[in-house]
């Protein structure tokens, strides 16, 4: 690269600081969003691994069941009947730290004698002096020195914890020493006890979560032998299989976040294209002169690309730093959502991997260079005779208009075609949304020309000449105006689309809660994270039923299970239907016969469950689950709408559940009151009476709905935050485009002033122009936003999570979006209007 040219280019940027800053900001914000989300996603993934995978230790396989654990007799059976030695029983679950709403600890119940080959930190590195009380004091635990320091406990102290509705006091008996960094971080969220303690604390009497195995030699033969010898109801899987299955639950969620962050980068690319393109147009004479004095086309192109690369490198570095900061902020939201919806994480911590940073840097620089390619070509094609004249550029755009329009229409149609073709690839569906956005962006020049010519034709209806002048100015500067209008249109349509999607989703969930939650009062375990399978004793149901105002009660036992055939799912065992009138997507028999069918062994599956596993009830009449009694087929009685879990829910009768699995707890009790009973008084009375002995949560129907919607809103916080940031990038893009457009008209504006236009008239002209551009963006954004909303609601959501959502169109959303477009455009016009008011007319006219 020629140094003198690069120097000239960079000095030019040094003199146009606002523009240069906008370019750097565009790259920085785009990179920051991509890196931030990537860091949040990878940190959450790593935290998940630390939360679960570290439990595996050196185990190669594990024996598991489809329900909540397996009988502890399987372990003795394994040792005695199969003669297989390298095995260790494990009971695990999550406890909450009392007094803290967020701190969660994983309890790992182990057999110290079986442990050494599996988990070093349990077997070898427990303080020797502490091992005796650890084994002899009932209910005692061991924890890492780091966790002990955080919780301010030492051996001999008692740790106060909570599980379900019970408060626990657990003596600290030993301190664990981590072998390496991975263990050290894993142990930050983990406490260890013996098997019996864990069974007692986690309400799993006589159960094990799983049995770890080390199958080192003759793997296939050993596994085959074990599989045939082990009792029914259990299966063997590899250690990685389970982690992968749990990890994959959040795939769609992560993909949605990544797509939004990439959208921000795309908007950032518009900004970069615009800034570089403007810098090229502003220097068209310079390029002409350079060509005249001997610069080759390649030298000019290299100059433009070189300076873009250098400036975007600054933006990228700033973006990486900002991304790490954003990642930290986003991680809290991401892990909160994962804990709310998928599994409780006990370890969190930011993980800034080199891969995230390199990926972000390459994307940022790549996007900047791609965006600069066209302007570089424009600069390269500068003729030494006349350089690039704006009029020539506009001529070229006008000549290309039919092709641009055709390409736009093709992209739009291709996007719509991909959306309409039934397929399950979410990434492809996002690609289709992108095509629709790009297609519409390419159609914007023709729409602008048509709408401006309408204004010009209706000029006799308009007062004064300003509006017509503004319309003509917009139409004759298509190369710039269409870009600014397209960028603003994309930003506003994303706002319309995402808001409509979230609004539709929320409305659907609200409607669904209204018909599904039929009872008046709900008594449940306080929610502190997904996948914890906490419950309360059956006796609580009787206490609720005993209240004089309670007419009848229904119990529900929701469980997060990992199954062989269906992966993660939510099983709900209910004693009856709590819904007033449950909405079904499909039903095998008439409504009145569904629950009797459930009581005799049928199940209802949720819409996402049917979607995930491609279940066609006409073809697949049963689902198969491995129960304590072995593999069992359950007849599908119907498919119901359910928004409580995107993993999919299987609803069965409590009677059937207890016949197949050993479980003595219930998750919640729903109470229907006698007519005329005072709901609040009952809630108050039950809370007072039951709360005295346990940590139950008693809520009215309204209270439970509010809690559910609060979790819903929490889930979308990050989406809204991302949308807001993408909007900011877009606004900067539009601001820079409009400002550039106005600033390059210095001479024309000076002529207008010289021929008698006052400062205020000039201000009006500029604001009319930018306002008109905002209006066109807004008008274009409304149908595109609606199309995006339709795609998000009916395609992306369905393909990501399997949910059918009812589209809710709020006119306020559309009116606001239109107002945002106009306000953003007007705001962008203020600075140029102010600048031109100060123009030295003589100087501006003298400059060529």
């Amino acid at each position: 690269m020629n140094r003198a040219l690069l120097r000239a280019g960079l000095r030019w940027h040094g003199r146009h600081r606002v523009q240069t800053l906008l370019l750097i900001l565009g790259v920085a914000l785009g990179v920051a969003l991509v890196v931030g989300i990537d860091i949040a996603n990878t940190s959450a993934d790593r935290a998940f691994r630390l939360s679960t995978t570290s439990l595996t230790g050196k185990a190669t396989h594990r024996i598991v069941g489809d329900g909540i654990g397996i009988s502890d007799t399987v372990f003795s059976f394994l040792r005695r009947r199969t003669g297989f030695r390298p095995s260790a029983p494990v009971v695990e679950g999550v406890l909450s730290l009392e007094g803290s709403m967020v701190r969660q600890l994983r309890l790992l119940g182990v057999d110290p004698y079986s442990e050494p080959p599996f988990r070093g930190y349990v077997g070898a590195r427990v303080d020797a002096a502490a091992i005796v009380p650890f084994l002899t004091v009932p209910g005692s635990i061991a924890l890492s020195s780091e966790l002990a320091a955080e919780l301010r406990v030492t051996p001999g102290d008692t740790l106060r914890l909570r599980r379900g509705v019970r408060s626990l006091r657990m003596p600290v008996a030993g301190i664990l020493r981590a072998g390496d960094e991975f263990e050290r971080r894993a142990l930050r969220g983990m406490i260890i006890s013996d098997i019996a303690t864990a069974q007692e604390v986690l309400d799993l009497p006589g159960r094990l979560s799983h049995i770890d195995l080390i199958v080192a030699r003759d793997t296939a033969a050993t596994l085959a032998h074990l599989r045939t010898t082990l009792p029914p109801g259990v299966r063997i899987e590899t250690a990685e299989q389970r982690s992968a299955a749990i990890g994959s639950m959040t795939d769609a969620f992560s993909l949605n976040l990544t797509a939004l962050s990439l959208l921000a980068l795309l908007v950032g690319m518009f900004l970069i294209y615009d800034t570089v393109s403007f810098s090229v147009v502003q220097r068209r004479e310079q390029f002409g002169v350079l060509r005249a004095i001997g610069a080759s086309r390649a030298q000019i192109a290299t100059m433009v690309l070189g300076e873009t690369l250098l400036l975007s490198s600054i933006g990228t570095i700033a973006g990486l730093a900002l991304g790490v900061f954003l990642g930290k902020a986003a991680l809290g939201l991401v892990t909160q959502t994962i804990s709310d919806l998928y599994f409780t994480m006990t370890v969190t911590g930011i993980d800034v991997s080199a891969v995230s940073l390199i990926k972000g840097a390459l994307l940022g620089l790549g996007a900047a260079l791609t965006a600069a390619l066209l302007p570089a070509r424009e600069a390269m094609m500068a003729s030494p005779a006349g350089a690039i004249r704006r009029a020539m550029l506009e001529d070229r755009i006008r000549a290309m208009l039919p092709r641009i329009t055709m390409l736009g229409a093709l992209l739009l149609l291709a996007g719509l075609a991909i959306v309409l073709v039934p397929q399950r690839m979410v990434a492809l569906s996002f690609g289709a949304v992108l095509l629709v956005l790009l297609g519409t962006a390419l159609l914007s020049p023709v729409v602008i020309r048509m709408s401006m010519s309408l204004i010009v034709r209706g000029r006799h209806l308009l007062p004064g000449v300003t509006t017509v002048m503004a319309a003509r100015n917009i139409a004759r500067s298509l190369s710039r105006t269409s870009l600014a209008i397209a960028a603003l249109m994309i930003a506003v349509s994303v706002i319309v689309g995402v808001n409509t999607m979230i609004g539709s989703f929320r409305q659907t969930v609200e409607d669904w809660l209204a018909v599904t939650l039929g009872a008046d009062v709900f008594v449940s375990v306080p929610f502190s994270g997904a996948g914890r399978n906490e419950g309360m004793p059956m006796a609580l149901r009787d206490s609720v039923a005993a209240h004089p105002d309670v007419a009848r009660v229904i119990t529900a036992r929701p469980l997060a299970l990992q199954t062989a055939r269906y992966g993660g799912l939510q099983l709900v065992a209910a004693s009856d239907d709590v819904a007033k009138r449950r909405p079904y997507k499909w039903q095998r028999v008439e409504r009145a016969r569904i629950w009797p069918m459930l009581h005799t062994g049928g199940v209802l599956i949720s819409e996402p469950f049917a979607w995930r596993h491609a279940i066609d009830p006409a073809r697949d009449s049963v689902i198969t689950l491995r129960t304590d009694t072995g593999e069992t087929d359950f007849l599908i009685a119907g498919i119901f709408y359910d928004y409580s879990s995107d993993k999919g829910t299987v609803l069965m009768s409590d009677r059937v559940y207890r016949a197949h699995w050993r479980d003595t707890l219930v998750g919640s009790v729903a109470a229907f009151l006698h007519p005329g009973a005072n709901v609040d008084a009952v809630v108050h009375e039950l809370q007072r009476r039951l709360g005295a002995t346990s940590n139950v949560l008693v809520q009215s129907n309204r209270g439970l709905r509010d809690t559910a919607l609060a979790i819903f809103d929490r889930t979308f916080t990050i989406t809204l935050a991302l949308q807001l940031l993408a909007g900011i990038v877009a606004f900067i893009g539009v601001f820079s485009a409009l400002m550039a457009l106005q600033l390059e008209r210095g001479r024309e504006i000076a002529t207008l002033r010289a021929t008698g236009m006052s400062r205020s008239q000039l201000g009006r002209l500029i604001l009319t122009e930018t306002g008109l551009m905002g209006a066109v963006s807004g008008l274009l954004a409304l149908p595109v936003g609606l199309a995006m909303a339709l795609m998000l609601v009916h395609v992306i959501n369905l393909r990501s999570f399997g949910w059918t959502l009812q589209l809710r169109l709020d006119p306020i959303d559309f009116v606001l979006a239109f107002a945002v477009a106009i306000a953003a455009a007007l705001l962008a016009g203020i600075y140029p209007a102010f600048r031109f008011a100060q123009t030295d007319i003589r100087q501006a006219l003298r400059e060529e």
Partner: protein
Amino acid sequence: MNAPAHASAIITLEHVSKSYSQGGTAQVVLRDCHAAFPAGGCTVLLGKSGSGKSTLLNMLGGIDTPDAGRITVADAEVSAMNDHALTVFRRRTVGYVFQFFHLLPSLTVLENITLPQELDGKSPSSLRSRCEELLDRVGLAHKRDVLPETLSGGEQQRVAIVRALAHDPAVLLADEPTGNLDAATGEQVLRLLLELTRDTGKSLVMATHSHDVLPLADRIFEVRDGVLSPRTLDDVLRQEQALRERARHEAETA
């Protein structure tokens, strides 16, 4: 009458034509131009605004190409060159002085001067002494490190002349070099341009509409209605006199 092509000429034009498309119709700017400019001295291309003299100058400098005909500059057939050859030609064979100076505002005076050769891959340090010497000749050695915006119009044009000469081109092309300067400064710049061209043994081709420069020219060509014709100073003066007489007569009879 068109002059015949000459074997020893530094510049030859054979049947050169050029037209531009304007509003969809072709506008002929030059038609069948035929001429030979001898090496050395100052050749003036005279013509009114829009007569085509700048177009002709641009074609001589390789920044525009003819629609038909053949142009040779310093034994190089410019009209047959591709883009790369034209770029190299501009770097090495010609130097250009523009009406609006066209110095790069982001480079210092010295950097502006060395740029064409740097573009050609030469190191700026090797060019320094010659450029400084030329700057000294035009009285701007003390301003070599300032940016062009701090210079007056006359100073900027002097820098532009040095830039055009610094790479030792065979031909110097100047398009209305005094057109953007006041009369006194214009005259100073013109004398300097001629002096430097003669001292360095270059051939200068200058496009202008001003008659003030004619007494200093070695030969004159006029571009009128797209046709290029040789003129003498007497021809031009007589023609000017006749125009003046006619204008006075019309004013009196009006």
